[in-house]
């Protein structure tokens, strides 16, 4: 019975995946302007503030248990919102990096490789972060991996900023709005 249920679930998942594959995979920004249009702004300073353990400890010491739990849940759901935005952005950056890596200009191709590596590091940190945040819903642990996520995000923003500065200076302002660099 367990096997049949599992097989049924796998069949449904398999059919959905085949439909998804036949429909195409994901957005593919073809230039920096399109990439900036598709990216969702993530204020990493606010994220850092929200995930910081010091605030959590202060609230724990000064609020009643019920209020603290309610507030912690709200903070965690806000964090998940940040994670999902950053998750989507990292997929777009990966896609853009892959496209740029095939560019005939060696400088652009090199940047494509670099941004792709940075985006996959961000993606892995985000995966750990999302799992960690889900665990925090049921355990009183501090929020894990947020430092790695902010570091990776800053790194991506810095790389894009340098690329913009040397090749598309007119887009620097738009980039700053997305990455707060």
């Amino acid at each position, binding site marked *: 019975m367990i096997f049949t249920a599992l*097989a049924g679930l796998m069949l449904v*998942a398999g059919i959905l*995946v085949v439909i998804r*594959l036949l429909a195409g995979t*994901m957005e593919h920004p073809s230039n920096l302007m399109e990439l900036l249009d598709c990216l969702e702004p993530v204020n990493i300073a606010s994220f850092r503030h929200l995930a910081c353990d010091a605030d959590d400890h202060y609230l724990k010491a000064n609020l009643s248990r019920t209020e603290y739990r309610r507030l912690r849940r709200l903070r965690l759901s806000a964090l998940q919102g940040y994670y999902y935005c950053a998750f989507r952005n990292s997929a777009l950056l990966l*896609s853009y990096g892959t496209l740029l*890596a095939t560019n005939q200009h060696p400088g652009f191709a090199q940047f494509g490789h670099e941004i792709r*590596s940075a985006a996959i590091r961000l993606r892995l940190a985000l*995966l750990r972060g999302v799992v960690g945040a889900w665990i925090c819903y049921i355990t009183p642990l501090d929020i894990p991996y947020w430092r790695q996520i902010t570091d990776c995000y800053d790194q991506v923003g810095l790389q894009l900023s340098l690329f913009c500065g040397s090749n598309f200076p007119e887009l620097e302002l738009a980039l700053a709005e997305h990455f707060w660099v």
Partner: protein
Amino acid sequence: MRQALYFFWLLPIPLLSWIATIMYRRKQHFFYPVFWCYLCFQCLRLVIEFICNHISYKVYFYVFWGSSVVNFVLTMLLLRSIFRTVLENYSSLGRVRRVGYEITLVLVWFAALVLTIGLMHSAGWPQRITRAELIASFTALAMFLFVVATSFTLGIKWTSAVCGIAAGLGVMGAADLFVYTAMSWARHLAKPAAIASWIETLAYDAAMAIFAVYFLPAPLKSPPPAKLRPDLLAWADAMRGAIRR
């Protein structure tokens, strides 16, 4: 009815040979060597099985189950090649790329083995073979889902050819799992086997049609890349420096 089944059975042969030839002429067999071998094997398999079916049931039995084993191995290799190709550009995923597929394959295989214990009503040879096929189809579909899920989770974009290969394998894997799970509930295999062969044949044809859709049309010719003139690049660099100053 039998004539119709033969028709759908033999239908993929010209299609498969056409895809294999086109791929060879476009030198795509260098880019997708496992897939090309898989196509050639499928083409040969269909011809040999059809001939053996008319020679004797015993010969057909051994050829069919022998080729099913080779088919399973090739499917696993094909999924592994997709997994490795998709992750090959990411140095930070080197360890996942090297051992991730093999570890998952072993885990899924054992899970399938444990879950199917006691599933069959009797322990005759037909049931044993059905169980082996059930384990194989479960493993194939689980590995297909693992490869796709890894790629989706990591946000890696696939080329259309890889999407086509994976979608075809997914259709065949889903049909196999459905058929063999349904047959595991049957007490007598004679009548369900006739329905199963129809489902399998149609799913197989659908998968081959997917391969054809992705590999037969001529690849879109992108306009020749505008050559970056070195003098213009030098001018752009000079201008950029002037603006900064």
